[in-house]
């Protein structure tokens, strides 16, 4: 490998299409995992808020799942459902839970008591109160969880490349590049996946600012 130049630009130029396809696949896998994971987590969080006693159990289980190295979990899925999107998505979704649930719960817990009391006193129905008051105020922490889950998932999608050539998003190039001792491919896969994660992180920070203008409003100069 030492005689190889570090980057083969001609290969890069010739493969822009497939690379774009892999990026698309990467985003697609991430989106499914994050959406489904969020939906499940929201449900779990609602249960946890209503029945506080269940919350520690939920945390322990989701944390336990998260602790299992992803490689092991993906490999286990191959045995059950082969090199499919399902095999990729099940672990991906499971890994988002421990990042979403505590943040959603904390988000709703963070709504100040006096705001809830005055909302009731002014005549909001419970449903209106949840939608107009609790949900907006829970958003900062919920989006923080979304940020963690998205960035984590983007990283984990690279590992799905072990499931087969048809998967893996940008991780495909890392694995293939390693097997073929082809540095350019590794760089493409590695740097682009890092770049994707960073962009997603920044994008979600921006989203949070947009959704919650009151958190960035500065103290008025008196």
């Amino acid at each position: 490998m030492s005689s190889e130049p570090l980057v083969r630009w001609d290969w890069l130029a010739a493969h822009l299409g497939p690379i774009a396809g892999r990026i698309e696949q990467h985003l697609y896998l991430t989106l499914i995992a994050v959406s489904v994971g969020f939906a499940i987590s929201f449900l779990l969080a609602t249960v946890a808020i209503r029945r506080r006693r269940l919350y520690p159990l939920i945390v322990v289980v989701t944390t336990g799942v998260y602790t299992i190295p992803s490689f092991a979990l993906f490999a286990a899925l191959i045995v059950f459902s082969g090199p499919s999107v399902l095999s990729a998505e099940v672990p991906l979704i499971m890994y988002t839970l421990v990042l979403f649930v505590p943040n959603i719960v904390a988000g709703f817990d963070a709504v100040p008591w006096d705001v809830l009391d005055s909302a009731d006193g002014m005549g909001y129905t419970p449903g209106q109160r949840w939608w107009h008051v609790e949900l907006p105020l829970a958003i900062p922490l919920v989006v923080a969880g979304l940020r963690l889950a998205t960035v984590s998932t983007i990283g984990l999608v690279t590992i799905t490349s072990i499931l087969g050539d048809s998967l893996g998003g940008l991780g495909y190039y890392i694995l293939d590049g390693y097997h073929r001792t082809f540095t350019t491919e590794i760089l493409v896969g590695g740097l682009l996946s890092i770049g994707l994660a960073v962009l997603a992180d920044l994008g979600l920070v921006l989203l949070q600012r947009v959704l919650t203008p009151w958190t960035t409003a500065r103290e008025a100069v008196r």
Partner: protein
Amino acid sequence: MDLVTATAQWLADPAQWQGPNGIPARLLEHLELSGVSLVIAALVAIPLGLWIGHTGRLSWLTVSSANAWRALPSFAVIGLLVPFTTRIDPTLGFTLYPTVVAMIVLAGPPILVNSYEGIAGVDRDLVDAARGMGMRERQILVGLEVPIALPVIATGIRLAAVQVIATATLGAIFGFGGLGRFIVLGDANQDNGELFGGVVLVAALALITFGLFVLLERRLVSPGLSSRTAS
């Protein structure tokens, strides 16, 4: 059904428990290198984190470190290191070095951030009182701040340990040994017993490590701080 018996058979097979490719050897490999990486990372990150927390300088380092760590896929980190480590040593640079370097790099931030947060989380009033009593900076750090910060620092080490074990597992794809090797081989040989045996071993190692560290954290909290001493 077959999966369970296949796995059980593989785990029970005495041949798996001997030799340089046996379970104990791989386990040792996994633990040794994980331990070494963790220690190296801790030797750098803990003092740095304590210093940043105590003096308050360079705190941007911890924030950007935390962000970077979250955004770095470990798979990418190992992969990206390969072209460079192979220039140092073609053989080990292809199997051992990339994973070990990745383990150290990925273990650093959680330890750094938590060491910083542990110290920074100590009530400033306490520190002022200590200064006012004439304690020197180092005494304050060692005698006051660190004991209070210990549980948070321990959590950081736990996070790093879990990360390191996972990275070592992943490294098997890149030629590293350890327990991940069984998963790789099982997949290559279409031997579900071996594959799943590897999965079980890895999961067990990770969960046990996690549990041990949690116990350690509980032990490290001074009784005066713990809510358990409330009557």
